[in-house]
């Protein structure tokens, strides 16, 4: 099973402590890794098809990046062997620009038949991996919702997009969708762990698909429960702004 991890802070944060722990906890994911972050509101992605953890060591580049990146929002993904292709370009996070933002997307789980989805928008993600189709589907439906109502809230638009996606392509899905200011976290399977932590420069919020969290601290576990079709969280800075069932 792949894993995802995100950090959100009210200031540019360097993830040298938590990214390596995430890599170690996600060591069973042997098929590559990716880190997405923002610098002066521009999105950047660094990824590799090498193992994030081998010979009792976190991947050297992953470690160095963890020391160097400073960003208000950072997301990371480690790939499992079941996730399909071994090609580097298929690693998450993926990037698309729309609605005046550059967005990063990282996902775990699988939804049925989504690989057949054909986007109606440009640009297309020219990779044949189902994560790209999920990202395009959400992008397309966010744009449609905003075309219908330019003042629809982002939460409402994304909720509609997810409902539509899961109605047409049922399955297990968890993802982070982020722009330079806001992190949306959705999951309809597995448990997510969340922790607000005080650091020297201020508070940070950590959220991961790794059930037990990344440290001995008192991580709060959130599990979507029936009849909810999933949980959607809006996070900005070190705070959850809004959390609701889909």
């Amino acid at each position, binding site marked *: 099973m792949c894993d995802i991890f995100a950090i959100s802070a*009210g200031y540019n944060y360097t993830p040298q402590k938590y990214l390596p722990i995430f890599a170690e906890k996600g060591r069973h994911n042997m098929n590559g890794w990716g880190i997405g972050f923002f610098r002066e509101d521009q999105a950047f992605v660094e990824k590799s098809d090498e193992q994030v953890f081998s010979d009792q060591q976190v991947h050297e580049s992953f470690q160095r990046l963890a020391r160097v990146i400073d960003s208000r929002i950072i997301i990371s993904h480690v790939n499992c062997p079941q996730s399909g292709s071994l090609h580097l370009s298929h690693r998450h996070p993926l990037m698309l620009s729309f609605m*005046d933002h550059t967005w990063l997307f990282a996902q775990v789980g699988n939804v049925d038949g989504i690989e057949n989805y054909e986007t109606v928008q440009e640009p297309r993600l020219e990779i044949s991996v189902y994560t790209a189709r999920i990202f395009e589907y959400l992008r397309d439906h966010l744009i449609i919702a905003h075309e219908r109502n330019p003042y629809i809230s982002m*939460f409402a638009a994304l909720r509609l997009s997810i409902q539509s996606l899961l109605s047409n392509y049922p399955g297990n899905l968890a993802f982070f969708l982020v722009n330079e200011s*806001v992190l949306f976290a959705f999951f309809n399977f597995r448990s997510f762990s969340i922790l607000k932590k005080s650091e020297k420069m201020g508070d940070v919020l950590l959220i991961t698909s790794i059930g037990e969290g990344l440290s001995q601290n008192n991580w*709060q576990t959130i599990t979507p429960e029936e009849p909810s079709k999933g949980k959607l969280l809006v996070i900005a800075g070190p705070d*959850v702004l809004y*959390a609701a069932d889909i």
Partner: protein
Amino acid sequence: MCDLFAISANRDYSAPKSLPIFAEQAGKNLDGWGIGYFRNHHAYVEKSAKGIFKAGRLHDSFQRLARVVKSKIIICHVRLRTSGLIDECHAHPFVLEFGGYEWIFAHNGKAPVIESYKSSGIPMKEALSDSARTFEFLRDQLIQHFKQSSDAAGMFEALSRCISDMIEQYPGKYNFFLSNGQFLYAFTNHRQFMLLKGSKKLEGALLITTIEKGLSDEKWLRIAKSTSRRGMLLAISGTDIIVRQPL
């Protein structure tokens, strides 16, 4: 009645066009003005007890500030006194620090009942008005939220609950902007908010004001509470409405 205007953008923005138009439209408000903004996570306010518009001219300092203030979120208030004295202390916006943020608050409304509120925290002694007590009430309640809630509890929900409690305990007409620099929260249980984004004539950020016709002849969206609800709360980040929910 006072008036409110705010601009929210994805990057630091100035409002040299819309701020003077807002001032002119709100020119009947004679009892002071203020501009609040953020720089490096700190909240700053410039305010005055003088009329914003006098003898057909915009207040000199206001005009200059409109050209110079630069921030992702700018909040402006012009005052027509309904509570408190006419002096600089009573001009809005107000600033308070709590929950790890510096917050800017500007209010337009009338809630005399809340003037009796005694804060459990440090009171804003210099201001004896319903607006100051409203800000203290929200501050005190939000601090409780920060102390008691889990990491996954939403700030929007917390603010929504605080406002509901406030309206129940201290009924009145409330209409305010509250910002911690991350989000601009806008609440109303009377009057309307007019919204515009992507303006071709003013700044291209998201603009929001209580001025009924908006600040240009473009297509402004009117947002108000429905008659069956207690109010409407919005959370805005950059040019996006992130959450919009009736109370």
